[in-house]
Structure formats: C-alpha cells, structure tokens
C-alpha cells in the first residue's frame, strides 16, 4: 500500500488537507502569557497566572464574580442565608460532571473545604476559610456552611480560585493534570512552551462558549512578546508586560489596545516599625516629596490612575485622597529637616517588576531633591519575599497588592511587613468584614481610606493598570478585572 502512484495519492492528500483545513476553522484562540506557573492548582500555589488561566475556566467555585465585581451563582445556582447571617445553604447545579466523567456533588464540596482548611492544607489564602466552623452535605445537591461570625466577603471569597471545588480522586494530581468542572478542559501542557485547553461540550453553559480551543503561549520577554503579536502568532496578550511598547500597537489597525484597571494598589511601603518611618511626620514628608504624575508618566508611560489611599478607584467606596499631600519639594525638604532626618541614607529595596524598578528610579530622584539619599537595591523576587516581606528587613519598598478587599493588611498588626500597629484600624476592619449592608460597609471603607491617608502609612502611588493587546477580531475579554482570573466563557473571535 506504500507503492501508490502519485496520481492516486494526490487526490487523497488533497482531501485530507481539505478536512484538516475545515477542522482548523474551529475557533482557536492563542493567548500570550508573561508568567509561566510551575503548578496548575490554584488551591496550592499563589502564582497569579494559575488563576488567570485556570480559575472559572477549568476549575469552578460555588460562586463567581462578574466584571463589575458582583457575586454571581456558579456551581451553586442559589443560596439561602439564615436570619443571623451565619449559615449559608448552597444549592448545587444539577448534573454537573468533573472532566473525568465523575459527578460533582455535595461530598466534593465538603472534601474541597476540608482540604483547604485542614492541618495539612497548603492553601495560599487559608485565612479566607478562617470564619468557617463547619461544612456539611445535607443531600447530594445541598451544602450547608456555618460561620463563626458574619463575613461580608464570604460569598466573594467563595468565588475565588482558592476555593475551587475539586474531586478527592484527582486533587493530588491537579498540579500537573488539572481536573475541574469548568467550561474548558485541560488538554496538554508543554512546560516552558504552551498550555492547551479545549471546550468542555458537557458543560451546562456549553452553548454560550464560543471558543473550541485556547492555547496559552509563555513569552516572558517584552520584545519577544511584541514580535509574536506583530507576526500574528498570537491573538491576544491580555496582560501585556510593557506599557512603553503599546503605542506601536495603537498605531496598527490590526490591533486593539485596552487599558483597564486591576485590584492592584501600588505603594511605596515604609517600614512603620523602624526609625525614621515610625515618625508620622517623616512619612508625611515622603508623601509630600513624591510627584505621582511624574511617576506615572515615567514608569507607566501615563497609563495608570493615581491613588491617595489603599482602595481601587473603580470601587464603590472610593474617595479621592490624592490631594492630601500635594507635591511640594521645598515643603518636604523643610519637613525632613524639622524631623531631623535630612541628609540621611535609606534603602529602597525593589522587587523585579517593571512598575517597581522604574518607579524606584524616579522616587529616588524626587527624594534626593528633598534632601534624602535613597539607596535603590534591585532584588529578585525570592530575596524580596524572604528578606523584605518575611523578615521585614527594609526601610522602603515598592509593591503592588493585587488581591481584592485587602485593606485588612493594615489590620494584621506589627507582625506584618508594614510594621503598622493601630488598634483603631484593626477594630475598623473587624467592623468592615462583619458589616453585610453594602451601603454601610462602603461608609466604613471610606473611613478606612481616610485613616490611612491621615497617618500617611505609606506613600500611595497608583492603581496597577490591566494592559491588553488584542487582534481586532477578538471580542469579549474583560476590560478591567475585579479578581485575579480572566474568564474565557464570553470570549469569541469574529469572522
């Protein structure tokens, strides 16, 4: 059969290629990712790109969060809350299957929570399960979760990757071979190169899913990312690493550039536990010395919104406090002199993220003009998270806090790397987390922002933007993200 004359094989080949061509007309999206995770399990690793690829695409949680930040039903189609606000009864969607064909029921929910809360748990956000006292399967479709106290963020937290529902049979292997219940199934992962998801035809929302296949390509170098987009190897780069390269995409009619918002507050953190930053006057002088517009222009090429406290500008409780310490170099200089720290040398240890390293250079100049010698030390992430974050061995640093609802960082007491110890703030945060009326909670959040600004705990810089480059044909990506994930369910490619 291998001796077929060419005249006979040719039509067969043409037919085969024709079939292949029609098969490849299926909707396939190729997405560029800057960061490659080492594990694919969002319940055991905090790497942000796991959430952006896996959460609500492969793995599902009881609830989910919409683009506007609103909590919506997901695996739980509805829920009842008891009078006292402590017992939540979740009703699970009917007929849900894991990708391996096994049924997803109340037992799996109980297992997932036990795993996240147990002694052996390595859940990166184990604290969000802290208020839970019990998780019980009432019947195969109903789960009852009891809390020790009211938790305003409970339903929101149940919609995160940390609280994904997994099966006991496959949980251990989820790091390399994830089995979830979401609208996309894991297909393959060539480490260092690409990760492929395919549509899950059995998903309850399968009719609303436009993509048949999604390929993530891992490209860390910004110049390589630009070349790959320009060569049309990629359809989308939803978290584009370099703001300075965006103008060439804006000028190219093939592409669409999106500048949205994230939950990431970028701060110039000061070690409140250590002189000179234990002195509020010094912290206020730093806030006066820096010029946010100059930082945003220089470090982010103008693509970011300034913040004056620790809350995202797109949130419902936002108060604009950017005018609290107007930029005034002469005044800052006088303030530093009065506090007796003029001419001192301080370290500014920065992690290896472009927003941080670039901001550091500008801040160094601005502080120098105000008479402070800031020594910039560029350190790598492993060093930063151990020395700066864990051991609190720093004067100043620059970091983005990317988690939603994270004002509670300031209520973590002196053990947290801020070195900030304020009982009033701790009490306020307690009130915020237990206030279930949104309007009242927003009022408290506003008080919190005001308090942090008044005490100038850190110099608050800007909200980290979500920069995306897309081929014109790609539609349905979120413009801004209130969470760490990026649902592919609504994404499509126009013909």
């Amino acid at each position, binding site marked *: 059969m291998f001796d077929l004359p060419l005249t006979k094989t040719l039509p067969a080949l043409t037919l085969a290629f024709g079939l292949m061509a029609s098969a490849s007309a299926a909707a396939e999206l190729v997405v560029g990712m800057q960061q490659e995770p*080492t594990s694919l399990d969002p319940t055991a690793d905090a790497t942000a790109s796991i959430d952006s690829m896996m959460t609500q695409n492969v793995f599902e949680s009881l609830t989910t969060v919409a683009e506007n930040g609103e909590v919506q039903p997901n695996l739980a189609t509805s829920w009842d809350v008891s009078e006292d606000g402590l017992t939540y009864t979740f009703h699970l969607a009917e007929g849900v299957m894991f990708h391996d064909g096994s049924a997803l029921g109340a037992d799996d929910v109980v297992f997932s929570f036990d795993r996240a809360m147990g002694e052996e748990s390595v859940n990166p956000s184990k604290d969000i399960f802290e208020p839970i006292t019990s998780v019980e399967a009432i019947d195969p479709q109903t789960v009852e979760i009891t809390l020790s106290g009211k938790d305003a963020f409970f339903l929101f937290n149940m919609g995160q990757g940390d609280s994904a529902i997994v099966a006991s049979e496959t949980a251990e292997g989820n790091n390399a071979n994830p089995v979830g219940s979401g609208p996309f199934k894991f297909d393959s992962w060539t480490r260092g190169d690409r990760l492929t998801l395919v549509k899950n035809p059995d998903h309850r929302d399968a009719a609303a899913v436009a993509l048949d296949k999604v390929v993530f390509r891992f490209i860390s170098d910004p110049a390589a990312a630009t070349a790959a987009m320009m060569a049309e190897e990629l359809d989308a780069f939803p978290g584009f690493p370099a703001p300075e390269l965006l103008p060439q995409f804006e000028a190219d009619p093939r592409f669409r550039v999106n500048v949205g918002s994230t939950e990431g507050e970028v701060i110039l953190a000061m070690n409140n536990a250590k002189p000179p930053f234990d002195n509020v006057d010094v912290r206020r002088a730093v806030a006066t010395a820096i010029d946010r517009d100059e930082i945003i222009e220089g470090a982010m090429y103008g693509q970011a919104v300034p913040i004056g406290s620790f809350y995202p500008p797109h949130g419902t409780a936002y108060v604009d406090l950017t005018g609290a310490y107007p930029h005034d170099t002469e005044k800052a200089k006088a303030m530093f002199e009065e506090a007796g720290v003029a001419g001192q040398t301080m370290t500014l240890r920065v992690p290896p993220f472009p927003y941080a390293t670039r901001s550091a250079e500008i801040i160094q100049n601005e502080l120098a003009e105000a008479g402070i010698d800031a020594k910039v030390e560029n350190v790598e992430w492993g060093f930063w998270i151990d020395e700066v974050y864990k051991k609190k061995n720093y004067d100043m640093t620059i970091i983005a806090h990317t988690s939603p609802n994270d004002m509670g960082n300031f209520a973590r007491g002196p053990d947290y790397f801020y070195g900030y110890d304020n009982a009033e703030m701790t009490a306020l945060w307690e009130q915020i987390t237990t206030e279930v009326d949104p309007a009242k909670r927003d009022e408290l959040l506003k008080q919190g922002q005001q308090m942090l600004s008044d005490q100038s705990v850190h110099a608050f810089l800007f909200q980290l933007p979500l920069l995306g480059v897309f081929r014109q044909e790609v539609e349905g990506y979120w413009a801004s993200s209130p969470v760490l994930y990026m649902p592919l369910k609504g994404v499509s490619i126009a013909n």
Partner: protein
Amino acid sequence: MAYFLFRRTLGFVLTLLAVSLVVFAVMNVLPGDPALTILGMDASDDALAALRDQLGLNEPIVARYLSWVWNALQGDFGLSHSFRVPVAELIAERLPMTISLAVAGMLVTLVLALSLGITAAAQHRRAGDWGVMFLSQLGIAVPAFWLSILLVMLFAVKLRWLPPGGFAGWSDPVAAIRSLILPTVALALVQSAVLARVTRSSALEVMRQDFVRTARASGLSRRRVLWRHVLPNALVPIVTIVGMQFAALVTGTIVIENVFYLPGLGRLIFQSIANRDLPTVQALVMLFAAIVVTANFVVDLLYVVIDPRLKARA
C-alpha cells in the same frame, strides 16, 4: 591508557561532588524560601509550615544533603519543589530542545568559522581578510540579544518566513526545523566570530612553516594545501576553543531561549533559581558540570588524534 582513564574518571566524580556541595551551600545561604515563593504574600503561617514539612525543608541541612547524595548515586534526583514532578522528567522534557539547539549551533559555527577563517588566512592583508576581520569584530561586539531581535523583526515580523519563537518538539520535524533556524543563526553568528579569528591566526602561523612552502613548490594547488595541509596542522588551538564553546553553547543558551521563548534547560534553571527549587537547580548544575567535564575530556582525546606527538604526554 588505563591509568589515564582512571585518573579522568576520578577527577570527574570529584568535580561533580564538589559542585554539588557548592550548589547546596549557596542555595541554602541565599535569602529565600521555596514555600514562601510558592504560597505568596497572603499565606498563613500554618500553611507555610505544612508546605515546608511536605517539601522536607524541616530536616537538618546535613541530613538533607546526605540523603540527596545517596539518592543521586542511585539515579534518583528527587521531586522538584515547585513543579512537584520528578526532576529527571523535567530535564528529559527539555533536553532535546537544548541539545538540538547546541548541536545545530555548533555545526553552523564550525562551517562558518572554518571557511571564513581559512579564507581570511589565504587572503592575508587583502580585501577578503579585512572583510572577515571586520565581520568578526562586529560579531564579537553585537550582543546576542540584540541580534536575535533584529533577526526576528526581519524574518518573522516583516517577511513572515519563519516563526518568531517557540518550539513544539520533534513530532513535527518541519515545524521543529523552522523553529530552530533563527535561534541557531543567532547563536552561530556570535560564536563563529571568535572561532573564525582563532582559525585565521592559527592558519597563518602554520602557513609560515617550511612544509607549506614545500607542498606548494611540489605543485599542489593553493586550495589543496590550505584544506589538506594547513587546516589539519592548525587544529589544536581550534579544537580547544570549540570545546570551550560547546560547553558555553549548552549552558549559555539562556539569552537565546528567552528571546525565542524556547522550552530549554536555560530557562528551566533560571526559573528554578527564582523559585528556590533546590532539587532542580542541583540536578541541572550537575548536568552542566558533567557536560563541561566531558567536553574537556573529548578535547583531550582529540588532541591525541590530531597530533600523535602528544600521545606520549597523555
């Protein structure tokens, strides 16, 4: 010869042992904690403690090192701390990519450098010589990163002849070769610049010797004298440099792998150091050390083949 082999093997084992000790010590002195790197800024203390326990980081350091050596002797390099799969599996996935690139890069380097170097020597102090010297100066001065970006901009973005990066493995050989062309060229252009210079000066040295004049006088063509008499006698310094370059090719493809986003060993070691993934770093450094030592050994053997006079000294 038996004594020679024994001495080299002993040296090999001792080198690897020393390397493993140094890597282990450095990774432990380096600030950083794999559990913290994996679980991030919101991790609770008990989750961190649980993970450290699972990774075996709570064992005393000497016990950890000894058990690593014991397992490594049996061919077990352990589980990667960050990937949670056997290190051997991670390396096996990436090895074909890096070896393909290094071998292709070396072959192109040899062809380019030998022909350019010999041409330059033959054209000594004439246009061809100046041309080669100028180009090689350029090749030494141009950073590999920048050259790679230029190649991508021209051949992938502008002309669309080749993909801008990535490597999906050898299951589709045509795609694999297409993916390797640009990285190979980028690697070879820079490497061959050095080698062409060495070839040229070594050939010039030989060309001054009497036997070359005799060969020409006996009626052999210039071409035949160059390739059959000059080149073989000029090989000792060339082989030395090639040996060093091959080791550098395998270990030094990190830049190329980054620009062309290739799933090779260079990127793996980079990622593993960032993650403080000791078992993976340890195994990779051992592998690189083994390659360097082996390359040196092969070079020593080649000396004897090229120049039998050296046999007595080996």
